[in-house]
């Protein structure tokens, strides 16, 4: 027994006493093994940093730069592993709501607004040509007043109540002018004709109670 242990010890001592013939190969193999282990066990497939909502975002809301902010994590604050803001800006919220501080997933937004009209309601696109600032101030579900002269009854000013269903914008032909926006309004079926015919004559006045 003692002889066997002694022989084993001699073999171990002989093994360790001789120089290791593949030092660079061993270091390379170890490095590769450690890297692959760390990569597959320690890291995620894709980073999970997402922009968070700076305020509550309702369904159909068109996301503007002020709506999103960097996540509060160390890497998130400095903007690492975040997609471009452009992937969210200009998109419409697809979920019922995104609460303030919650991350905004790509599945939470869509490129086009939901414009299904309820019964007895009609949708009208109202350009904000002379009132572009409302694109910033208005939000979905806001109640607005359309005020203007009805061409059929000249001299009388007409008022129509409408609800904002979406705000849609597209780049203006002149890049210096920024975006050209329109409001998609939901009106009573009876008001649709008047508004559609007199778009140029109507002004949009938001109801104070519904402003953000």
């Amino acid at each position, binding site marked *: 027994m003692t002889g066997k242990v002694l022989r084993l010890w001699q073999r171990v001592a002989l093994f360790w006493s001789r*120089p*290791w*013939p*593949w*030092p*660079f*190969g061993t270091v390379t193999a170890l*490095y*590769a093994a450690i*890297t*692959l282990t*760390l*990569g*597959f066990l*320690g*890291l*995620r*497939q*894709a*980073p999970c940093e997402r922009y968070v909502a700076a305020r509550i975002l309702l369904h159909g809301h068109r996301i503007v730069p002020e709506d999103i902010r960097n996540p509060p994590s*160390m*890497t998130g604050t*400095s*903007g*690492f*592993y*975040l*997609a*471009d*803001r452009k992937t969210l800006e200009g998109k419409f919220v697809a979920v019922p709501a995104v609460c303030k501080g919650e991350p905004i997933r790509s599945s939470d937004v869509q490129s086009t607004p939901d414009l299904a009209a309820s019964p007895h309601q009609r949708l009208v696109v109202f350009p904000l040509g002379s009132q572009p600032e409302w694109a910033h101030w208005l939000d979905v579900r806001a109640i607005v007043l359309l005020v203007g002269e009805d061409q059929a009854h000249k001299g009388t000013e007409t008022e129509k109540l409408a609800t904002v269903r979406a705000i849609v914008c597209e780049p203006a032909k002149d890049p210096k002018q920024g975006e050209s926006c329109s409001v998609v309004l939901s009106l009573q079926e009876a008001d649709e004709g008047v508004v559609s015919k007199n778009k140029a004559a109507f002004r949009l006045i938001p109801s104070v109670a519904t402003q953000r």
Partner: protein
Amino acid sequence: MLSTVLTQLQALVSPRFVVASFFPMLAFWFAHAVMLFAVNAPFRAFAQAALNQPLGTSTALVAAALIGIAMSAYVLAAVLPAIQSLMEGNWPSWLVSIFVPAQTRCLERIDAKLDENDRLRGRITASGNAPDGQTAAEAWRSSLTKARQVGAALGANQYRSTAKSAQTVQRLANLRRRSRAVSADDLNAAVTELIFDLRANNADQLGPDGDWALENTRKALWKLIAYADQFAAGQYRLLLNKREFSFGALPLAPTRMGNVARTIQTYAVKRYEFNFDLFWSRMQRLLQKDKDFGPILQAAKEQLDFLISCSFLTFAWSVGWSLWLFLTSGPRWMFLAVALAGPMLSWGWYRAASAHYRTFADVLRTSVDLFRFDLLDDLHFPRPSSVKEERYLWQTLDALQSLGEVRDERYVGVKAP
């Protein structure tokens, strides 16, 4: 715009700095910018906005970036000798002892190939199987001829192409088809096998399969012997040069580059007893003055420094980003790509630098050959008249300079006061 700035910069500073430090540093920062562009949204937005800036703003941005890069390039230029020293294997002794066996194995492989070469081309001594003065090839051919003569006296030929000796020769012929070396041991075994068959069969008669298998095998082996001999002759100088230009005197350095670096000193000492490490700085003045050799040396050093810088900066970039990606839980694929491909690329640069170091070392050896007498003139020592006298003179100067021994040597070309 950028090219104008670079051209002007090149005129202001030395080409060596621009090539060896500035360009690698420019690429280094550009690689950082690429990574930042990939993983950092604000930087991405900034870069996209910067590209659309008016000319004045973009010029200011580029100028600021170039100034920053130039400053970091100066830092790199200052630490480059230290990096080169690290790559040459100037490490703590315990680390050297771990990594040097890899280099020793390379040297032993070359030595083994040289031994094999010697066995093929060298003359077999009295202790061998052939008479003195015969090469192995001659001895094999002679044995085959004799065996064939013995077999020719017989009346039958039972040799088939499936015989063991025929298969052995076929295997060696395949080596020749692939331009591989045929070893002396393999040839010896094939000759021994075929001798038995040649003695037992008549090669002048057709075999049982109605072919000339025995004679064809003998001819094939004959050609293989000639091939092995020619191959060894071609390899000999190649191997010897590889040994001389890849490994200096013992003990070996732990890195390829270190061993190539040591060949310069080894050559100078072996050839002239010239202590290159000691006299190199004194020789530089002479080399720079020479309008033909100076630019050659400068270009070789520039290219070497460029490759060393690229290797180091690639490694630094890779380590930095690997750590950052891991510590901040970055994307897995990116971490793996940076952590695995970065060091591989760095190693590729290092191998290129090591290969180029051979050229640089050759230029330095040539400088010793060409300028050592000019150095003697510069030091006001007489030029020697023979090889032995020269070796003694350099030994004396070495003792004077490095050991501080006082040895008398006559000065020449010094004006009397």
